[in-house]
């Protein structure tokens, strides 16, 4: 039973990582930048939902919707103000700007909402007054939070794959990530496509924030940074720029972390997870589903 329950909690954690990693990987694929502020958008999303739920007493679905809207706007505004003027700049310059934005969001949150941790409503997803259900004669309890997290992740994954494969906008996004100049010549509005990518990524970040905080209900301005780093690792692990890769990487990282915590050591979980990641990257240097780029001489 320990195996099953650790597997399930691993999948749930991995689903959250996967949703965050999707945001990283999409933005990387299209704008070739590491958006370090992504983790902090998650934090903002969680705060918005917390206030909608706790202070205004709105139902949870409105809270989630509200935080998605606000995060989407935030993502687009950040992109317009901070990243768009740097389109032509070196990638390191954009990276530092992203770090600046991340500092800004964290400190703005610190000023607005103080550093004291807020406890996120723990039984966030309740059905019929119960927080979960049991299987195997009550031996294994699964909370609705875990169920919702996993379902969310699968739905998002399918929706995103369909979006990028079938719709016109999705095709435009793939074209821009393939070759910006050629896409522009084909009549694609590159700037708008990039903005939309940021909007989608930030909206996903809001969902991830709510899911993350319903599973680990401590909310403070630095909440987003560590999951952000781990999701970024997951995105690279799966092959950055690839949507199924981010999904797979996030899921594997979550399961790995959960198993390490259950069977090996809680304190050294981070070290072991990162260690396995390094070994994996050495065996497959471009990530699990990453494309092998041939170098032209």
């Amino acid at each position: 039973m320990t195996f099953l329950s650790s597997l399930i909690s691993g999948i749930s954690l991995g689903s959250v990582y996967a949703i965050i990693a999707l945001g990283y990987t999409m933005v990387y694929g299209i704008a070739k930048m590491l958006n370090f502020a992504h983790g902090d958008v998650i934090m903002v999303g969680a705060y918005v939902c917390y206030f909608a739920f706790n202070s205004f007493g709105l139902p949870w679905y409105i809270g989630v919707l509200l935080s998605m809207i606000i995060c989407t706007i935030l993502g687009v505004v950040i992109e317009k103000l901070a990243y768009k003027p740097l389109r032509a700049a070196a990638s390191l310059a954009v990276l530092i700007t992203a770090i600046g934005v991340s500092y800004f969001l964290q400190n703005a949150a610190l000023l607005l909402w103080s550093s004291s941790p807020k406890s996120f409503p723990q039984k966030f997803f309740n059905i019929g007054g119960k927080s979960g259900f049991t299987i195997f004669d009550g031996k294994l309890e699964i909370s609705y939070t875990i169920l919702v997290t996993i379902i969310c992740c699968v739905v998002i994954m399918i929706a995103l794959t369909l979006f990028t494969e079938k719709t016109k906008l999705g095709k435009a996004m793939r074209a821009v990530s393939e070759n910006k100049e050629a896409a522009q010549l084909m009549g694609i509005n590159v700037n708008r496509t990039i903005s939309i990518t940021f909007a989608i990524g930030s909206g996903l970040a809001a969902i991830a924030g709510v899911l993350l905080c319903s599973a680990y209900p401590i909310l403070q301005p630095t909440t987003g940074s560590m999951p952000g780093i781990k999701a970024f690792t997951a995105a690279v692990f799966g092959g950055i720029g690839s949507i199924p890769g981010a999904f797979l990487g996030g899921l594997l990282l979550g399961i790995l972390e959960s198993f390490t915590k259950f069977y090996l050591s809680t304190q050294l979980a981070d070290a072991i997870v990162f260690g396995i990641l390094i070994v994996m990257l050495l065996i497959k240097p471009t990530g699990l589903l990453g494309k092998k780029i041939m170098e032209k001489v």
Partner: protein
Amino acid sequence: MKKLLRKDNIKNLSSYILVIVAFVVCQILIGAKAMPSMYQSLLIPVCVYIVMALSLNLTVGILGELSLGHAGFMSVGAFTGVAIALALKEVITATWLLLAVAMVCGAIMAAIFGVIIGIPVLRLKGDYLAIVTLAFGEIIKSLFTNLYMGIDPEGGFHIGLITKPEDLVEGSKMLINGSIGISGVQKISTFTAGFILIIISLIIIFNTVKSRTGRAIMAIRDNRIAAECVGINITKYKMTAFVLSAAIAGAAGALYSLNYSTISATKFDFNTSILILVFVVLGGQGNMIGSIIAAAVLTILPEALRQFADYRMLVYAIVLILIMLATNNPTLKMFFDKIKKAIRFKKKEEAKEDM
């Protein structure tokens, strides 16, 4: 004389002069008691961050690989340095010698870690390399938060991971105490030591860059395939730069930790690595004098903004973004290029007139 006044030599010389002048001015201000104690306490951290920025610039600017775990090497140097200083307290009584030994040991240990990390890391490229350095930084932090080391009365070391070593007899002393880190450190770092460390790092870096090794490293940065074609051993030179950078960071870490009475691994986290990277990028990749100025200004800036109290980090973030936007603004860039061209043109005219 002509050789001495070559352009890059002048640039290097100006770095030395800047550091020396700054040191002398600070010493005069301290002597005249004209420096507020707040800034005085910042002198050693400023020196440490300058050295950290210089060493990272070797990896990012000269070797051209992004490293996101540089604080890890600082951490290795810090823990080694403090442990050595505590262990040798009775043997070496002169504090300057103790500090020097601690710094050298910190550098050696960080170099060893540099080799261990470098072997897998340098096989990768670009973002994958960056993520692995990040992972190593986190691993080092995680290991040090769970490391326990005690010394028994006979001088034997006992090491334990996660739990305290069981074979520790009574009367022994804990050196490293898990997540609490090391406490009761003798503060032996001095501003002069920091100054000497900066000068030594500058000498090492400038001489490496100018040597055959340095040219090989920069050739790899500019075009790896071309460098490989002319017979440069990529792994060897990449490793040289990486280990050198790690060693200098280790020495800086030892100096940093011996400035405080307690030291814990959480001080050297991902944010510290990023902070140092910010110095390097703002100062200009490969530009050592830029790194020095950026590290000094950005270490002092948050403290100088103290009057804004709670808003200081917010202001810092905005300043950071604005600097990046301004330095990469095409209009501004064109403007500066025009000025540069005008100055150069004028010089040429003068040279013609002289003939």
